[in-house]
């Protein structure tokens, strides 16, 4: 007898996440690529901006942080779904008795973990290289909340679009083209909140709350659209067909 949907979802999400991590641990492909990229970017930022005074680096640090997250996120999402595309395993999961939402949760979860590993290098790196980033050391809990919420929002919407392209046979280069515009709101939110953190803005909790609310919305959108994006939706198709039929009927009536 089938378990209840929430039980299935939880168990299957954990199983798929474990499988993702097990495969990653075999070759560390995503982690190594992403962390190496992060270190290179950090080195380039240091060479370019280290000589500037604190007042000049203050507005730059949020941008450096989230620009790197955006690039690392694109690399990670692209490669994560490339694996599925190469072996066509996403389709095997979609045809199996697996909650499709569990696939989304596992992919988003594993991508989030890779991003957080990179941020574990990136944030201390920025804090060490730039005096403006000293606040990251001084307010570790707020910094952790900011990083987790920002990365979660990015991953929530990014996973949806990466899956859509992988399932539909779209080109990888399209992911970057699509991903940056759709992740702009969450990156802008993260940018503003990071500035509030660096400025010791008393409204920081409110900013973090708004980021959390945005994440909930994006996760909801991702969860709702994941299955229709990958295999289509019968009601949506029916509605579209009904609209087409209605339009055709109207055209027939209009014609003499």
């Amino acid at each position: 007898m089938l378990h209840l949907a929430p039980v299935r979802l939880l168990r299957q999400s954990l199983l798929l996440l474990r499988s993702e991590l097990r495969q990653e641990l075999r070759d560390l492909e995503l982690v190594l690529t992403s962390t190496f990229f992060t270190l290179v970017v950090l080195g380039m930022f240091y060479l370019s901006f280290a000589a500037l005074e604190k007042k000049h680096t203050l507005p730059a640090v949020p941008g450096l942080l989230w620009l790197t997250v955006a690039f690392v996120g694109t690399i990670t999402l692209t490669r994560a779904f490339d694996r599925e595309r190469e072996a066509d395993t996403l389709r095997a999961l979609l045809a199996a008795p697996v909650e499709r939402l569990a696939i989304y949760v596992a992919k988003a979860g594993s991508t989030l973990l890779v991003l957080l590993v990179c941020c574990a290098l990136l944030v201390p790196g920025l804090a060490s290289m730039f005096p403006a980033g000293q606040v990251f050391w001084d307010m570790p809990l707020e910094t952790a909340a900011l990083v987790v919420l920002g990365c979660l929002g990015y991953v929530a919407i990014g996973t949806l679009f990466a899956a859509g392209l992988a399932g539909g046979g779209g080109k990888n280069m399209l992911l970057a083209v699509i991903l940056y515009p759709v992740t702009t709101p969450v990156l802008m939110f993260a940018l503003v909140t990071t500035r509030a953190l660096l400025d010791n803005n008393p409204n920081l909790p409110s900013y973090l709350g708004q980021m959390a609310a945005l994440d909930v919305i994006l996760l909801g959108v991702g969860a709702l659209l994941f299955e229709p994006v990958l295999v289509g939706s019968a009601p949506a198709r029916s509605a579209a067909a009904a609209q087409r039929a209605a339009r055709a009927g109207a055209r027939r009536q209009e014609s003499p």
Partner: protein
Amino acid sequence: MTGAPAPITPIVLRSVSQRFGRKVVLRGVDLELRAGSITGLVGANGAGKTTLFLILAGLLQPDGGERRFGGREVGDVDLELRARLAFVAHAPQLYPGLSARANLELFAELRRAAGLSSRPADDVLRGLGLPVDALDRPVSTFSRGMAQRVALARAVAGDPELLLLDEPFTALDARGRSQLAGALLAERDRGAAILLSSHDQGTLLRVCDRLVLLEAGAIVREVERGGDDPAAFAVRAAAVLDAVGPDDHAA
């Protein structure tokens, strides 16, 4: 107390159509798959066979027509239905870095997490002739034929009521084809409805109870094995296979 769930067979497609952009791939396909019967789907490359498989497996929503499972019209092929069908695609769809056993165990665990049963991975793999020493090797080191056997083992492990096999004999040697044919006949005898497409005419003639010819997205011919005269079926089936053309079969 509730009894066993109603069977999902017969599976019936009525006037199913599908287009991709301007290209019409399926044109009003009618098809019925019965329990305990193997239906061979033949047709030239591009005739729409794989699209038909995807629609039956719930991986594609048809643009029009009906899908009925056990007399019930379904919009989405939901998890409850997917629990009772299995699809083997042209590609083995296995995680290359995982071993054969780990691949099967992952899907068995996913079934169990949903409250479904699954046969032990080793039993199923050995039943399909995979050498015991290969079970723990990464699938990336397998030949195509061996990987195909693992994919088949994954499909039959859940004792599906509907088995969809798109080119399962690809890359199998004669012994592998024979083993697979035996496994399909066992699944049929267990009561599964099987839809099979293949370029292997000999095996199709050997195992199929019915042959359906798909041409340019429409079913144009159908022959059924009668209980009376096996030779007559062979002649009629050969005529259907000839209609596909030897070049396409060899492709």
